[in-house]
């Protein structure tokens, strides 16, 4: 009854093996109906050994994707496999039960068993082993994650940071073929998180399995990822190295994840690789003279067409020509409208193109902003976000 693992996805006891395990490959569709609106997750991806970040805003479908891989949710169609091992294939009506997938999954809320000790939590997935082996494996894991002294502590009493370590140890001790991490470290401060990640990396140097790490934090993408996939509204809209995906001109949807009030068509006017910048000419700026913006450098040739996104809250507004600035873009213009939305004032400025600027009530009053008032817009180079049109 306890040991029903007649079908093994891979040998249960292969802790010492260093050969890379199979690539996690998925191509599936899952329709979720709920709260009036329908959501469709429709993805195709490959996750090789090592860290891959799954990046997306909340509601993009990240947890649903992980649930499908783990078998906690069933796709409507498609296929999921780890190397040669098929976990799910709608065509063959094949659906390996969760318990037999060997997919490690650490939830956002960790889901430690509250009535068990840390040691018992870690031993939970080893019920198929005889006791001496079980104790040995659990002890080694507790040591690898530096939580030996918590072994007899009840999971209820273990603090943040340490409970994350227990949850990781509990999952990794079962030697999963793939590891899914659903923002388990989101609540931790950066130094604690970094230490846990180091231990996780050490573990994976020996095991070399695909690890899919979910986050909605941009910073984590650069800090942790070897590769990144961007999930937006149920689709993977970009994939590659963090540098490629996050700094290369992006699909507009990627950029819109974080919301840009100002998006303009632009042409690359000049490229300055030595300074890490380039100059973009904004479209619709023919009548009043061209609006040129200095932007960060991306892989784009002179003359190629891009779009530039600027957040309304990133733009400074001055009523006289500012000097001695680090910001490289100072654009003259006139106020076309000033509207108050709740506690934010939204000013529209005609400066060759029309830009939306957000400022506080106090700033509006101090600057005495009125219609047709002459102003200068100040935009930092790195506030200009480039995307593919």
């Amino acid at each position, binding site marked *: 009854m306890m040991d029903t693992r007649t079908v093994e996805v891979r040998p249960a006891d292969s802790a010492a093996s260093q050969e890379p395990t199979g690539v996690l490959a998925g191509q599936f569709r899952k329709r979720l109906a709920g709260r009036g609106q329908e959501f469709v997750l429709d993805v195709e991806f490959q996750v090789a050994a090592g860290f891959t970040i799954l990046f997306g805003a909340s509601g993009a479908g990240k947890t649903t994707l992980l649930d499908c891989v*783990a078998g*906690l949710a069933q796709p409507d169609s498609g296929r999921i496999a780890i190397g040669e091992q098929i976990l799910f294939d709608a065509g063959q009506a094949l659906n390996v039960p969760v*318990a037999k997938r*060997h*997919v*490690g*999954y650490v939830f956002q809320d960790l889901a430690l068993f509250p*009535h068990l000790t840390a040691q018992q939590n870690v031993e*939970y997935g080893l019920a198929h082993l005889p006791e001496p082996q079980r104790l040995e494996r659990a002890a080694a894991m507790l040591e690898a994650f530096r939580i030996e002294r918590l072994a007899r502590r009840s999971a209820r009493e273990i603090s943040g940071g340490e409970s994350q370590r227990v949850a990781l140890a509990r999952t990794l001790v079962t030697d999963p073929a793939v590891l899914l991490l659903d923002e388990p470290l989101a609540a931790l401060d950066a130094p604690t998180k970094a230490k846990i990640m180091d231990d996780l990396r050490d573990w994976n140097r020996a095991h070399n399995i695909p690890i899919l790490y979910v986050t909605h934090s941009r910073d984590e993408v650069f800090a942790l990822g070897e590769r990144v996939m961007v999930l937006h509204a149920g689709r993977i809209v970009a994939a590659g190295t963090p540098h490629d995906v996050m700094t290369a001109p992006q699909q507009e949807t990627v950029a819109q994840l974080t919301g840009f009030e100002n998006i303009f068509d632009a042409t690359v006017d000049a490229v300055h690789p030595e300074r890490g910048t380039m100059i973009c000419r904004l479209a619709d700026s023919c009548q009043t003279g061209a609006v040129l913006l200095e932007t960060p450098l991306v892989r784009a040739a002179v003359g190629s067409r891009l779009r530039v996104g600027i957040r309304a809250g990133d733009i400074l507004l001055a009523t006289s020509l500012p000097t001695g600035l680090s910001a490289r873009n100072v654009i003259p213009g006139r106020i076309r409208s000033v509207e108050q939305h709740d506690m934010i004032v939204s000013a529209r400025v005609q400066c060759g193109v029309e830009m939306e600027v957000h400022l506080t009530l106090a700033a509006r009053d101090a600057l005495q902003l009125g219609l047709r008032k002459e102003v200068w817009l100040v935009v930092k180079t790195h506030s200009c976000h480039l995307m593919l049109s």
Partner: protein
Amino acid sequence: MDWQAFWLTLQLAVVVSVVLLGIGLPLAYWIAFSRWRWKFLVEAVVALPIVLPPTVLGFYVLVALGPRSPLGRWWIGLTGHTLAFTFGGLVIGSILYSLPFAVQPFAASFAGVDRRLMAASATLGASPLRGFFRVILPLSVPGLITGIALSFAHTMGEFGVVLMVGGNIPGVTRTVSIDIYDRVQASDYAGANATALLLLGLCFAVLAVVYGVNRKVWAVGPAK
């Protein structure tokens, strides 16, 4: 004080509680986790004894155990005698009568266990059965105590079903509540009072244990 009736009742309550633990756990598990669209009908049937007059329930159990029902005929064919007016018949009637008092607290505490814990159990390679015994059951102990205690106390004091199914045979089906009734009929108020007081004290003690041991389940007031 009719000690024979008291021991018989105690025996009945213990047997019924143990059997209800066996029947109630799988039934409560199914009620807590099944996604069958007609599940509510089963829930309604389980809850029926709460509102049904005991005489109605007792009447149908009596008919079902008697020689006119297929069930009764099958049992008579098997053993040579009827279950009506026997201790076994009492047990069956009492199980049905106390079923919701066991199943509802069980199901409520199963459903209260965080679903993510069962998901974690499954991803760690545990079968649903192992997850049930290692995770759901230990986290449902307060609900289990409540269910068992309530069915025990409920069976101790039952009257209508017992009278319909068991009659009033001393040492076989004569329980304390029937004893009390008989004494009142015979104007033995002192004797009735002694037995009634014992039953009152016992039921109070059981409920005090339930509420003392677990202050969460069925407690009035904020949880935790």
